[in-house]
C-alpha cells in the first residue's frame, strides 16, 4: 500500500510509525497462503463428519447460543444434509481462492464467515486450532492480504496496473502478538498443574486417546517424559521471544518446528500443528523473505 510511504505520511505520530511502517508485501502473501492452508486442513479434517455436527439430522443444535456475531451462523439457516455439503464446498472454494489470491478480499470475507459460523455451530466440539484461526481471521480481514504471488496480481498486470509491493505492517504485528499470547498463556496455565510440574504429562499424554502409539512403556520412561514435558513448556514460554528477535528467529523456527512436528507425528491433533506452523511466516522480516525468495529461485529456477 504505497499510500503509507513516508511521503504520504506527512508528520506521522509514534503510533503511525509503529503500526503503519511499510514492509514487503510478500510477507502478507506468505501469511495469506499459510492461513488458507490452515483453514483448508481444518475443513478437510471435518469433511467426512460434516453432517454429525452441522446438519439438522446431526447432534449439535445451537439455535439458542447467542453472540455478537450470531448473524453469521449460516448453518442455522442452511441445515439440511445437502445444504451443509454445498456450504462446505463453497467455503473450501473460498479458502482455495484465498490460497491463490483470487478475489482475495471477498474470499477472506467468506472464510471469516466460515470461521464464525463453524464456531457457533459446533461450540461443544470446539478445538484449539479453531480458536487460533478465528482469532487471526479478524486481523486478516482488516489487513492487507499481499497482492504479490496472487491471481489478483496477474489480473492487475494484465490490466496494465502494478500490484503494491509494500503494505503497512500492522496485520503482521497483530498476528505475531496473537500467536505469542497463545503460547505464553497456555504455558502459564500449565505451570500451575502438578503433572506438568512433575514432568509426568508426556507419559500420560502418550498413553491417552490422543496418542497415535499408546504403549505402557511410557510409564517406565519417566525421564523421557520429564524431558519432553519440560521441552514443551520451555518451548511455549520462549517461542514468543525466539520468534520475535531476529538473532534467534531461526532457532525459534527450529524449536517451534520440533514441537509441532512431533505433536503432529505422534498424536491425532495434527491439524493444530499445521495451523500454527502455517502462521509462522508472519514472523519473517523483509530481508528474510528476500533471502527465502532468492533461495527458492536458485533451488527451483523461478520465483
Amino acid at each position, binding site marked *: *500500500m504505497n499510500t*503509507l510511504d513516508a511521503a504520504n505520511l*506527512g508528520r506521522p*505520530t509514534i*503510533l*503511525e510509525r*509503529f*503500526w*503503519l511502517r511499510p514492509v514487503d508485501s510478500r510477507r502478507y502473501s506468505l501469511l495469506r497462503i499459510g492461513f488458507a492452508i490452515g483453514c483448508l486442513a481444518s475443513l478437510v479434517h471435518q469433511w*467426512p*463428519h460434516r453432517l*454429525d*455436527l452441522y446438519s439438522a*439430522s*446431526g*447432534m449439535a*443444535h445451537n439455535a*439458542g*447460543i447467542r*453472540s*455478537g*456475531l450470531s448473524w453469521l451462523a449460516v448453518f442455522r439457516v442452511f441445515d439440511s*444434509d445437502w445444504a451443509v455439503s454445498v456450504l462446505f464446498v463453497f467455503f473450501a472454494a473460498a479458502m482455495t481462492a484465498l490460497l491463490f489470491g483470487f478475489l482475495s478480499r471477498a474470499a477472506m470475507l467468506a472464510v471469516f464467515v466460515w470461521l*464464525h459460523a463453524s464456531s457457533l455451530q459446533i461450540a*461443544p*466440539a470446539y*478445538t484449539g486450532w479453531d*480458536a487460533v484461526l*478465528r*482469532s487471526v481471521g*479478524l486481523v486478516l480481514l*482488516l489487513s492487507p492480504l499481499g497482492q504479490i504471488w496472487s491471481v489478483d496480481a496477474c489480473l492487475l498486470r494484465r490490466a496494465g496496473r502494478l500490484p503494491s509491493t509494500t503494505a503497512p505492517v*500492522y496485520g503482521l*504485528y*497483530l498476528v505475531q*502478538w*496473537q500467536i505469542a*499470547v*497463545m503460547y505464553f*498463556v*497456555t504455558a502459564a*496455565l*500449565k505451570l500451575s*498443574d502438578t503433572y*506438568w510440574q512433575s514432568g*509426568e*504429562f508426556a507419559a*500420560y*499424554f502418550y*498413553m*491417552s*486417546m*490422543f496418542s497415535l502409539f*499408546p504403549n*505402557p512403556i511410557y*510409564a*517406565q520412561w519417566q525421564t523421557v517424559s520429564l524431558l519432553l514435558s519440560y521441552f514443551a513448556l520451555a518451548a511455549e514460554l520462549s517461542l514468543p521471544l525466539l520468534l520475535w528477535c531476529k538473532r534467534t528467529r531461526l532457532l525459534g523456527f527450529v524449536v517451534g518446528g520440533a514441537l509441532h512436528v512431533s505433536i503432529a507425528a505422534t498424536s*491425532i*491433533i495434527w491439524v*493444530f500443528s499445521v495451523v500454527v506452523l502455517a502462521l509462522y511466516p508472519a514472523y519473517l522480516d523483509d530481508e528474510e523473505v528476500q533471502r527465502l525468495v532468492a533461495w527458492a529461485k536458485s533451488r527451483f529456477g523461478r520465483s
Partner: protein
Amino acid sequence: MRKGLRILLCCWCSFHALIVLLVHFPAISGPESFVSTIAASYLDRTGSWQSWNMFYTIPHYHYFDLDIVAHAQDGDTRVFGPILPGLRQHDGFIRNTLFFTYALDLDSYHLPRYLQQVCREIRAQGFPAASIELRTHVQQIRNLDQIEQDRIIAENISEIRRRANCLQTGASL
C-alpha cells in the same frame, strides 16, 4: 489513506493487542472490572473471544466410546451407535469425542435435544423405543506407578450417563 483513518486504524490495533492480552489476566479483567466489561463486549462483538487452556492438565482417558441402549415397552432391548445421523458407531473422531465429553460433563443444553433426536431416529428405524440410555465405555488411565507394575494402561469403566423417555420429551439422570 486519510490521516483520520490512519489514526483510527492505529488506535484499533493498539486496543485489540491490549485486549487480547488483558483478557487472560483475571486480576485485571475479573468479572466485575471495567476492563472485563469492555473486553467481553469487544471480544463478543468481533468474535475474538479466546481461551488457551489446551492440555493444561493430563488427558484422563485412554479410550472413549459410547452406545445407546433402547428399551421397548415389551421388554425388548437393542443397542445402537451414538453418532447421528444414522446411529453409527463412534469412530474416535476428536470433535465427536469433545462433543460428548463436554455435553456430558459441563453442558445441559445439547443433550436433551440430542436424546430426543436419537429417540426419533431409533423409532424411524423400526424399533419401538420407549426409553433409551446413553452409556459411556471409557478406559481411564491409571497412575504411572500402577502401570509400571503390571503394564496395564487403563481400567474399564462403563456407566449409564443419561436416560430419556422416548414417549415424552426430555432426559434424566
